[in-house]
């Protein structure tokens, strides 16, 4: 496995002069920050990415498994996340609860996360303790003991987590209902990452151990190490600790190419706990992997210029000029193994109705579709996106996050490297064509959050 030298993120962008749309401003941004990434793959299929940085004597290890809540089936929702919790519950080498204690005892911090498409485990620790965390992370890739004794209290913890994140938060409850319609009831991305409460109560040893066996294997994982280390050192340790773990047969990751079939729809959550109403609309949208993927870059520019900052169209017109909204936003996330969504939202100004907001948003959308976008606003959006990418190189956590997300959602290291160039070559026409493709009535759910009379 030869090491492949790579210029990460902003690599290849010294060709900035050849990228015409935005000329010198972008080229200047491109030239300033680059980070070297090195990649290799172990014989058992574990993909490794090393992002050396000498800034502080610390390292971050992240192991990302290519499995998330969208790989669950109805009736077993929450399994990916429940398993994430159980990964701290012990192996023969490391007793239950000890993983984090050992990391902490050695001056480090650790945690984990679950998304629709991935599950990640990360530690940040003194550079000389890299071996310790690699040994322990490799150990729990295959040796976790899932027992009823540990599941019982942890189930309560997860139900409390659900209460905190979802049941206590009207906007989260609305989001659950909206996803069910947008992606189609019981389909991937329609079911909540943390799971439905009934499923969490039902999941047991067999479900979780089965999920672990089916999805946790070196050939279904990405190891990312960032910080004060070298590719040679990481390779040596990876071979020693992850190398002996056998590969497993991994089933295909299935994602529907269609979303909800009964669209458009409107969901209204009237809730006594809502103080300020909110209007939003979500459209099914292509990701980097599914649907009309050619629009994935133009949609990022569209979200930015339409509602991505306080100089965007929605902010300027709805908030500054017409005073219909208190704030307005648009967002789009292309990193998904299946379909994704393009979202627009507005908090109405006092005494403005949700109908007025909807009319104003619709008028702005029509204006963009009919009148196009200016070269200047496209360039500004591209600059904002690229600037954010440059600043993200200033933090140790962002590199692993970017690569982990990309590689668990079907993108490649080359895709990550090419991102700045692809963003900077998006044209005005592509932005409008992408908007026309996504802003279709039969692909949308309108989500209303409104105050209800207080029932106590």
């Amino acid at each position, binding site marked *: 496995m030869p090491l492949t030298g790579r210029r990460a993120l902003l690599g290849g962008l010294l060709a900035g002069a050849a990228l015409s749309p935005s000329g010198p*401003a972008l080229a200047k*941004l491109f030239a*300033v*920050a680059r980070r070297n990434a090195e990649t290799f793959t172990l014989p058992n299929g574990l993909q490794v990415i090393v992002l050396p*940085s*000498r*800034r*502080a*004597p*610390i390292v971050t290890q992240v192991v990302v498994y290519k499995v998330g809540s969208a790989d669950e089936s109805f009736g077993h929702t929450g399994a990916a996340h429940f398993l994430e919790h159980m990964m*701290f519950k012990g192996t023969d080498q490391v007793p239950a*609860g000890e993983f*984090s*204690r050992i990391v*902490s*005892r*050695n*001056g*480090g*911090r*650790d945690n984990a996360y679950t998304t629709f498409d991935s599950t990640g485990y990360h530690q*940040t*620790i*003194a*550079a000389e303790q890299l071996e310790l965390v690699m040994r322990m992370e490799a150990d729990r890739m295959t040796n976790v003991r899932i027992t009823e004794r540990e599941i*019982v*209290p942890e189930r*309560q*913890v*997860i*139900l*409390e*987590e659900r*209460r*905190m994140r979802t*049941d*206590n938060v009207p906007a989260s409850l609305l989001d659950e209902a909206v996803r069910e319609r947008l992606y189609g009831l019981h389909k991937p991305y329609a079911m909540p990452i943390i799971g439905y409460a009934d499923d969490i109560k039902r999941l047991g040893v067999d479900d979780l151990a089965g999920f672990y066996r089916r999805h946790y294997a070196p050939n279904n994982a990405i190891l990312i190490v960032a910080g004060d280390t070298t590719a040679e050192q990481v390779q040596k340790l990876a071979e020693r600790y992850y190398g002996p773990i056998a590969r497993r047969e991994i089933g295909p990751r299935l994602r529907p190419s269609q979303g909800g079939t009964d669209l458009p729809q409107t969901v209204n959550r009237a809730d006594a*706990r809502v*103080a*300020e109403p909110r209007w939003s609309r979500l459209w099914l949208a292509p990701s980097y992997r599914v649907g009309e993927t050619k629009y994935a870059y133009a949609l990022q520019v569209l979200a930015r210029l339409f509602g991505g*900052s306080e*100089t965007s169209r929605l902010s300027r017109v709805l*908030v*500054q000029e017409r*005073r219909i909204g*208190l*704030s307005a936003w648009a967002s789009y996330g292309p990193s998904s193994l299946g379909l994704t969504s393009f979202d627009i939202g507005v*908090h109405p100004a*006092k005494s403005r109705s949700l109908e007025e907001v909807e009319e104003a948003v619709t008028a702005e959308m029509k204006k963009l579709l009919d009148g196009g976008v200016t070269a200047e606003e496209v360039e*500004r959006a591209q*600059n*904002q996106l690229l*600037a954010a990418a*440059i*600043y993200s190189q*200033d*933090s*140790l956590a962002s590199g692993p996050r970017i690569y982990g997300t990309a590689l668990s959602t079907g993108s490649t290291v080359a895709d990550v490297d090419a991102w700045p160039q692809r963003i900077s070559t998006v044209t005005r026409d592509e932005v409008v064509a992408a908007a026309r493709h996504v802003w279709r009535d039969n692909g949308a759910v309108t989500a209303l959050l409104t105050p209800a009379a*207080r*029932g106590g």
Partner: protein
Amino acid sequence: MKPLRALAAALASLFVLLPAVAGAIEIREITTPLGIKAWLVEDKSTPVVALSFSFSGGTATDPAGQAGITDLMAGLLTDGAGSMNAQAFRQRQENAAASLGFNASLDRLNGSLRVLSANREEGFELLRLALTEPRFDPDMVAQRRAQTIASINQAAQRPGSVAGRTLMETLFAGHAYAADPDGTPEGLAAATPELLKKRAAELLLRNGLIVAAVGDIGEAELARQLDHSFGLLPTGTLPSLPQQWVPPTKPRVVVVERPVPQSSALMAVPGIPRDDPDWYAALVMNHVLGGGGQQSRLFNEVREKRGLAYSVSSGLRTYKRAALLLMSTGSANERIGEAIEVIRAEMGRMRTEGVTEAELTDAKTYLTGALALSLDSSGSIAGLLHSMQIDGLSPDHLTRRAALIAAVTLDDVRKVARHLLRDEALTTVVVGKPVGVTQVP
């Protein structure tokens, strides 16, 4: 660096991180030609300059009848300056890929600037404009006021926010720290552009300034830029501090009803000032009790063993005129009473037994090592340098910190635990529909 290495060698086995940390951050103190003092860590590894700074006086010194004016003013500093309205000012920031922002805490008016070093000239010019020629255009004042009021209304429905607010109102009744930093609708309504201008002039004083800079910039260049941005600010009388806080002397339990399935609980006792000789013993005690991460006694007893909560932790908070030790958790309405009892039992156990030898050792290793973990971006390093100055520490503190932590003994921790963890000084706030929690007025 020589003495450092020697010290490090002496502590080698336990405090392996020390030389590396100290080597990673070499702090220089500079004084500009116009007399502005700043701390600088020059770091060419990323092409970024990050500035963290603040001025004396925060929301606790909001004038009577103008609750919220300081934070509103802080936000408006970047909503138009000089000949530029808010949109034009923002576009110039975007063109330079610069990010500039202000906010107010109880004691200080804080600001930060982040800019590519290639664009630093423009970044520091925008900072100068925001500080010396802010506009407070009436349309922007109205917009920010409306946004702030909406966010106050929203916070009033979030159990965690309500608990935080209620705790401060209860602990600091009659003191300036009781007031919501965001203000009140009435106070915000009273904040006219003229009063906002006046408030800015009262606080933006050169003699109240603390600055830290990190990144791809040398001493001479930083001095030039700081004089450009801050040099025109006047000196003047700094806002007077709030009175010293008199902590409560009897236990209280406050319940605020909200229609939610999970109650939020906050528990607080008077804490320890940052300059107290027992600070490091308190830091160790807090780490073992409920400090960050997943190793603490509270995490183990409340979450791991009993599954009573997802989130449970404790922390030390310091203000200019007060200090708190805070514990927080959230649990189903039916179980929050039990969670609170477990936390109280752990406070009691810590008070009577202190920590074990092993806990002491582990806490020291963590607290020594964790410093380096926070040095992962220019902004976070600038933030650390800034807070060190607020705390009155010297630049060589980073080289002495490990020894201060190492010197903490079991007795020190026991003493500070007895002093802090007193039931009779405990204020508890529960927000939700808790079952079996009785108010103690």
